[in-house]
């Protein structure tokens, strides 16, 4: 799974520009699923038919399950080119712009670009005390004229942070776009395990989550699931200087279940079903303890006639910055937890009881 994650992170996939990630995932999984297509918004929708189809069970409808992870990451887009060759840009998705000055990003086909920053020696006193204003930031790709820049990085070119997957110490790994390539890696592993479950399981790799939960909305509207589990990365603030009540999740304490975030109140009975699966299989888990953020669960829950949703997330420090940090074990346990949950449906006829 780590190698899959490494491969996914190596591919740029800013919201609306997920082509390379989509191609990679599509080519890897398509021989393991019963049906697969790309929808109008570029999301991959695949399905593994359930064992109920070949069983002797009566014709009662077996709930449809949807698993979802988003392929897109936060990033940048070039919005104008200055006469001196520097580039104006906008963010795509929520990035804390205070972290940007002095960083290097990659544009288009791996073109390095520096986010310019005034040297400390030249800053006025008030300037020094404050964060740089976003509208004064620019990208330097080493050109000196507008014409040169237009050839290399025209308006509309997307950009990503550059950090690749790195193994840190103590079981921790870091990289950009862990949100939500980690979710994609977990779902790919589930598909490639070859295991079939009781219910039909629709596994979706969605687009444009970071700019408004878009791809998951249309995917859910097409699939009309009864039950959905969103696999995500989430805020983890178990770092110095944070009050105990604001920590949200702890890296290494297992995957985190969401009770409520800013956009969704997760289904209690589905959460309990997942907790039972965790307890029966000795898997550790935690709750997300801060009501913050929102993810694809919000759009899936309200699609069509509504759906029971849960969200299982890997704690990720420094989320939405140039590189996050997460615990490898949390990722592996999350994978196992979802598999155990899906297996539990066999004894309940596919339903949450």
């Amino acid at each position, binding site marked *: 799974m780590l190698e899959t994650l490494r491969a996914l992170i190596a591919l740029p996939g*800013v*919201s*609306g*520009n997920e*082509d390379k990630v*989509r*191609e990679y995932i*599509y*080519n890897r999984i398509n021989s393991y699923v019963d049906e697969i297509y*790309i*929808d*109008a*918004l*570029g999301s991959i929708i695949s399905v593994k038919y359930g064992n109920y189809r070949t069983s002797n069970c009566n014709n009662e409808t077996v709930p449809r399950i949807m698993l979802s992870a988003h392929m*897109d990451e936060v990033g*940048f*887009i*070039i*919005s*104008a080119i200055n006469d001196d060759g520097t580039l*104006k840009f*906008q*963010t*795509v*998705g929520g990035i804390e712009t205070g972290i940007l000055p002095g960083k290097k990003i990659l544009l288009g086909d791996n073109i390095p670009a520096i986010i310019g920053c005034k040297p400390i020696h030249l800053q006025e006193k008030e300037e020094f005390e404050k964060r740089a204003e976003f*509208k004064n930031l620019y990208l330097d790709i080493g050109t000196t004229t507008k014409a040169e820049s237009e050839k290399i990085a*025209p*308006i*509309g*070119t997307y950009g990503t942070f550059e950090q690749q997957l790195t193994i840190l110490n103590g079981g921790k790994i870091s990289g950009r776009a862990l949100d939500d390539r980690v979710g994609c890696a977990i779902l790919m592993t589930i598909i490639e395990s070859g295991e079939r479950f009781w219910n039909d399981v629709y596994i979706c790799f969605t687009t*444009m989550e970071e*700019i*408004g939960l*878009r791809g998951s*909305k*249309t995917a859910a*509207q*097409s699939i009309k699931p009864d039950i959905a589990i969103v696999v995500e990365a989430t805020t983890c603030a178990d770092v110095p200087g944070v009050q105990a009540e604001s920590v949200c999740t702890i890296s290494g304490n297992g995957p985190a279940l969401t009770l409520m975030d800013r956009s969704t109140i997760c289904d209690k009975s589905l959460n309990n079903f997942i907790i039972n699966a965790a307890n029966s299989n000795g898997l550790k888990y935690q709750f997300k303890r801060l009501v913050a953020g929102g993810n694809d669960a919000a759009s899936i829950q309200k699609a069509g006639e509504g759906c029971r949703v849960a969200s299982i997330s890997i704690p990720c420090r420094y989320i939405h910055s140039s590189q996050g940090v997460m615990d490898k074990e949390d990722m592996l346990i999350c994978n196992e937890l979802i598999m155990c949950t899906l297996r539990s449906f066999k004894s309940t006829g596919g339903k949450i009881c």
Partner: protein
Amino acid sequence: MEINIELLSELCSIEGPSGREIGISRKVQEELKKSCDKVLIDAFYNVFGYINGKSVNPKTVVITAHQDQIGLMVKKVEENGFLRFTKISGIDPKILPSQQIVIHGERDIDGIIGSTPPHLAVDEDKKKKPDFDELYIDTGLTTEQVKAIIRVGDTITFKPNACLLASGKMFTSSSLDDRSCVYALIELAAIFKNNRPENNLVFLSASGEETFSIGATVGGNLLQPDVAIVLDVTFGRTPGLDVDKTFKCGEGPVITIAPILDKRVTGKLLEICNSKNIKFQLEADGKGNGSDAWALQVCQKGIPCAQITLPLKYMHTAVETINLDDLTTTINIVEEFCNLQQNEMEVMLCWKH
């Protein structure tokens, strides 16, 4: 092609604020009936003009502009006959004092939004923006007269004021957002009346874009087209504004690259402009939520959308201003797109892997 200024002025002058588009919908219906195979108005006053394509297996293309205009609404009739009001959609209260308006009660009544004479204004007040609750409308009528004609909920719009400016190219009027593009729909329908396209065209004059996008939502869910082209306005450049968010009037309409706007369709529009030497400007937007494309994209199974916008100065005031050549060019680009063969559309809509 010359712009029919009389028709454009008329379209800008007809009442139709968000939620109360009945007046403008009738005019649009009348005009579209001259060219379309079928014209329908729904319960939300959206107008649908259908032109059937020649091809055996036509794709369906929706071209949409919004017919609603910004406006205000009577909230309370004061004891002395003055009216208190609220906004229906985004209006800057700073432009309201001293503004001529029309109240649409039992019949149309002219009025002025009152303002404090300079002699009486206190210095601090001169610097603050007015609160909506402090503003009022003076009709000159007595309380009894007002109550006989006007009630809570009646809508208020700017007094029509269309005029061609000295250059002969710049045109100013309230409601050019987005009646200028509604005009474009009517012209396009007329072009295709005698020159039947390969693919089905549906001209959607949509209600409610300034508020809740009811038109785009209904239209998208009902029609489920293969492609949608959204025509709206964007910020015209005036001194002091950001170069990446504003565009010069007279240099062509703006084609937007944004995460939610489909790359394949946008790419096709750019290809058309480049191959036919059509003047246009390019915009990159980190989100893309400024038009009905936002609502259309996520209808049902998803609709690939592209957007063409007209640079417009002084947006959401009574003196919106455009360059008529930009409007002509917009119509040209859409005409070329609609003239694509059925198989060209098919190829465009494939996901390239």
